[in-house]
Structure formats: C-alpha cells, structure tokens
C-alpha cells in the first residue's frame, strides 16, 4: 500500500453501530473506519459479534442504531441503496454458498450478466481470467459439488471478484476447510491484498493477519476491545482480554 492510498477518504464508516437479536445485544456501539486499500482483520471469540458486524456492512444483517456509510452511500431501508452497496461489495462466506445447480463458470458470470448487464462473452472472458488468477481454470465447466472445499472457496472468491467490487468482505473463509486446503485459499487472499483491494476479513488465521493486515480489531461481547497494527496486537497488546485470547489461539 502506498502512503497516498492510506491518506484517502475512508470507504467504510461505521459510527456507534448497534444490533439486537430479540433482547440479546449483539453489537454494542461499533466504531470503525476503513480506508481505501486497507486490509482489516477482525478476530475474537465465537459469539463476539464479529460475523454479525461484517454482515451489517452489506446489509445481510440490519443494524438498529448508529450509521454505516459504504462508498459514500448511507445504509437505510432504501432497497436501491442496499443493492448499490452490494454491487460494490463482494462477500465470501464460511460455507462457500456456491450455487450447486450452476457450473463454476455460470456461478461466476451470473451476477455480471444479470446485474451489471455484461454480455455473456465479456463475462466469461473475465470469468476465465479470474479462474486463472485463483488457479483453477480447468474446473470451469464442472459443478461445485465436484470440487474440493478449497477449490469451492476459490471459486467463491472469483465469483465475488467478477462483479469488480471496491470492497471484499470475508466471513471466516477458511473455517470450514480441511487443514491442507487452508493455504491455497489464504494464498489467493494474500495475492488479493497485495493487489490493493480493500478487505475486511473475519478470521482466526493469525499468520495471515501478521502477513497482510494493516489494522486488526479484537472483538469481544459485541464491542471492539482493542485495535492496532499487527505489530502492536501481537507484540504489545494493551488489554488483558486480548492477551488471554491470543495466548489461547497461539498456544499450539
């Protein structure tokens, strides 16, 4: 990341974001700004609200208080605004969520054709480039059910990238993978981070965070307990809860 990009206006702004599930207070006033090209890693114990938070960015979950502004658009109930944000925001899920009735290529080209209104030829050309980028061009005509988990997740990344989003959201992208497949997915994500993509990643992969994160946020009980660069978080965490959590996940 060049210094110039870092000083850019923030592309995601969250101010005092709250979310309740019934009486359960899942997000308790989250404040965060993400600049263009920044790679943000969110980590924390399960139930800490990190997945809920990342899903409020593209309105898969609705926040009930505070404001979220993505690429200059304020998230409200306005469906058109929500769809505009979703077009500019790619998302990769823990369970891949590929469309099982479509081939790999059709998974990738569906949204460009139906939402961006590209021609099929154009969409497939870009789809093929993306499949080469994630390393599986030979799987284009297969169905998701015929691929390994790691391959499926790489297709999911390609599918999100096909819309040429400005922001990529990753919700625990490697948590459902067998250990030997985690690396192939992380390699793609590292390459993506190096290319200058703005990324928000919920993950427990601390090696990945150390390698590419600009800022790390530690979530616990619906709040941001601590944030900082990887050097600060790993080298000199201020909060006891952060230290305890890091010692638990780094102990083996």
């Amino acid at each position, binding site marked *: 990341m060049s210094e110039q990009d870092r000083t850019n206006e923030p592309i995601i702004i969250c101010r005092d974001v709250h979310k309740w599930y019934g009486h359960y207070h899942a997000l308790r006033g989250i404040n965060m700004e993400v600049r263009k090209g920044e790679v943000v890693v969110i980590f924390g114990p399960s139930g800490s609200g990190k997945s809920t938070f990342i899903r409020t960015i593209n309105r*898969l979950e609705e926040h009930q208080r505070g404001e979220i502004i993505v690429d200059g658009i304020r998230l409200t109930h306005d469906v058109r605004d929500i769809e505009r944000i979703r077009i500019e925001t790619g998302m990769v899920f823990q*369970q891949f969520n590929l*469309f*099982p009735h479509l081939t790999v290529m059709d998974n990738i080209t569906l949204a460009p054709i*139906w939402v961006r209104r590209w021609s099929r030829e154009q969409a497939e050309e870009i789809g093929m480039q993306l499949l080469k980028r994630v390393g599986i061009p030979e799987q284009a005509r297969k169905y998701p059910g015929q691929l390994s988990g790691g391959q499926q997740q790489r297709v999911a990344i390609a599918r999100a990238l096909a*819309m040429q989003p400005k922001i990529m959201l990753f919700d625990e992208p490697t948590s459902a993978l067998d250990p030997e497949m985690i690396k192939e997915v992380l390699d793609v994500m590292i390459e993506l981070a190096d290319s200058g993509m703005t990324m928000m990643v919920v993950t427990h992969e601390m090696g990945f965070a150390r390698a590419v994160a600009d800022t790390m946020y530690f979530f616990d009980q619906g709040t941001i307990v601590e944030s900082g660069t990887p050097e600060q978080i790993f080298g000199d965490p201020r909060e006891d809860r952060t230290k305890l959590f890091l010692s638990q996940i780094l102990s083996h």
Partner: protein
Amino acid sequence: MTTSTSTSSLAPPAGVLPPPTERYTVLGWLRKNLFSTWYNALLTVIFAAVIILVARGMAEWALTQARWEVIGANLRLFLVGQYPAATTWRAWACVVLLALLIGLSWGIWGRGQRAGAIALGVLPFALALIAQEEARVPLLITGAAGLIGFALSFWRGVRLQRIAIIAWVVYFPLVIVLISGFGGADSPLPLVPTNLWGGLLLTLLLTVVGIVFSFPLGVLLALGRQSSLPIVRSLSVIYIEVVRGVPLITVLFMAQLMLPLFLPGVTIDRVVRAMAGIVLFSAAYLAENVRGGLQAIPRGQYEAARALGLNTWKMMLLIILPQALKAIIPILVGQFIALFKDTSLVVIVGLLELMGIAKAVLAQPDFLGLQAEVYLFVALIYGLFCYLMSAFSQRLERRLSTGRA
C-alpha cells in the same frame, strides 16, 4: 512395500485393486434370491402358485371370453368423444406435431438413446397395422413425423435447443386453437363447440391446461406465502388453506354452478369452467409442495444471491426456484399424475372425458355388461400415460443432477 520402487512406474500404486466381480449362474442366482432359506423358498413357491393361477385365469378370460369388439367399435368415442368426423384431422394434426416435437426433443436431450427413439418411432407404424382403416394413414404420418424430428435433431444438433423450447411453448396454445377452431362454417377452422369434445382428447386437454396454468399459479402462491408483505402473505395463506379444505368435486360444482351466479350476463363455456376449477384446485396443492422445496434451500443461497446484488425476483428466478423445483420433481410429477386421474371427476358435471365415455359406452344396449373389458381398456390408457409421466420425471431428475452437494 520394499520392492515397489523398481516397479512403481509400471504397476498401479500399491494396494489399488479392482473391485470384486460377482458372477452368478442361473441356478446360483435363484438360490441366492429366491431359495436362500426354507421360509424364502416357501414364500417363493406360494407366490409363484398364486401368480400362475391369476395369470392363467386372466389369460383364459382375455383370450376366450372377453368381447373386445366393444373397444374396436367404440374406439373413436374413446379417443375423441363426439368430435365431428369431418374435423378429426385436426386432432390428428396435434398428434403428428407432438410426434415431431418428441422426436426432436429426444434427439436433443435424450443423450443419443437411439433404442428408445426407434421404439417410439416404430410404435405408430405397428399400431397402423392393427388399426382401423381411417386411422392407418394418420398413424403412418405420425410415425414419419417422429422419425423426421429425430433426424432433424442430428442434422442441427444442440443448436436447435432454443427452437425446440419455443416450439413446445407454442405447441400448447396451437393445440387449443386447432381443437377448438374459430368462426362459423365458412372459416378455415370452423368452431367445434366444447360439448362435442370428449374421450381421451378431453382428458388430455384438461390435464395439460391444468398443469400449464396451475404450475405458475402455484409457484406464485408459494412465493406469496413467503412474502414479507402481510397482505400478500395472508391472501395466499387464506387461498391455499380454503381450497385445500374443499374436495375437488365441490370445487368443480362451484365452478359450474356458482361462477355464472357471480358473473351474471357472462357465459363461460362449461369445459373452460371445469378447467378453471381444476387449475384453481391444483394450484393450492402445488403451492404447498413448492413451499416445501423452498424451505429445503439453505439460507446461505439467499445470502449469496443477495450479496451479489441480485434483487428479489432475480434471486428467486435464477437461484432459489431452480433448486427448489429440482428438489421436488418427484412430488410435482406425483401431483400431475394425480391431476391427470382426477380429471375423471368432471363426469359429475356432465363432461364426457375418458371415464364418462366409458360409462356412455356401457349404457349402449349392444354392450351391456361389458364392464370388465371397457374398464380394463380405460385403466390401460390411464396406466400408460401415468407411466410415461413418471418415466419422464425420472429422466429429468437424472438429467438435472449435478453430482453431490
């Protein structure tokens, strides 16, 4: 595996063996499947005896006592009811076009299964041999049409896919126009009033119209039931629950008697009223089946579609419905089969479809007391069509399967 290094490039990797093959002699198969234990052997003997007795009785009756002439003499009635002889060619035209379309589709989507296609093509020729004089030429044309369609599919192959789909879509309205006609005696296709429609022709028309119209209606109702708009949702729920709480016969009666009361001054054709009743009835059941399919789709599919920026309609049409409908193909076809058989209930409101014709034939003084022959024949026709529908659904399922997941 100490010696494997030298041979590893030639032999398959260590431990990889071909699966065991099971081969049986006829006697071996019999012993394994029918006489494995003493009670299996006993059951085999008892059932064999029962089957032989029944089959012999049936064969004896069918070959010596049954008076099959009742079928031959009334074949026309069974097939088209009182549809005028002068316009029968229009029904034949529908059959010929259907054969053409089936032949074409078989070639395009049948994955080159020639045996079935040839059997299908030869069937009309075989029927032509035993058919009555007037049916021979049309049957020959039908067989030829089927083969021409099949040949066409080889000539242009997959490129005809789109044309074939359009042809199917156009086919159904075309059939209605052909069968019903329009205008007076001087028009090229004079109107044939629906009270002359009957027999298998009417049964199939009721079924096809029932399926073609109740399917989209049922899908819309299912989506309505899941809608977040309270009015749409409650209207859908009320419609579905009310219709499902009423027997089809009641719906048919209401369509016949009450529709004219509700719409005074407007006369709706009797057959159309019956069709409306069947469509409205079937749609409610379909809606519940489709809802079952929708509920089987994981939340992640909705989320992935939304995250890509698809709006609700695109999400439903491109992502959710294709998967939901695929998952319920067996249920859908089961319901269409039930609908096909339920069309026999229109007898109650005075329409002479296949079952109605059967009753009318049995009332003829010449053929009193021939219930066994007539109903057996009708059952065979119903059975044949139900079998075709169910076989088609199994092919469709295999065709649409995309591996595990």
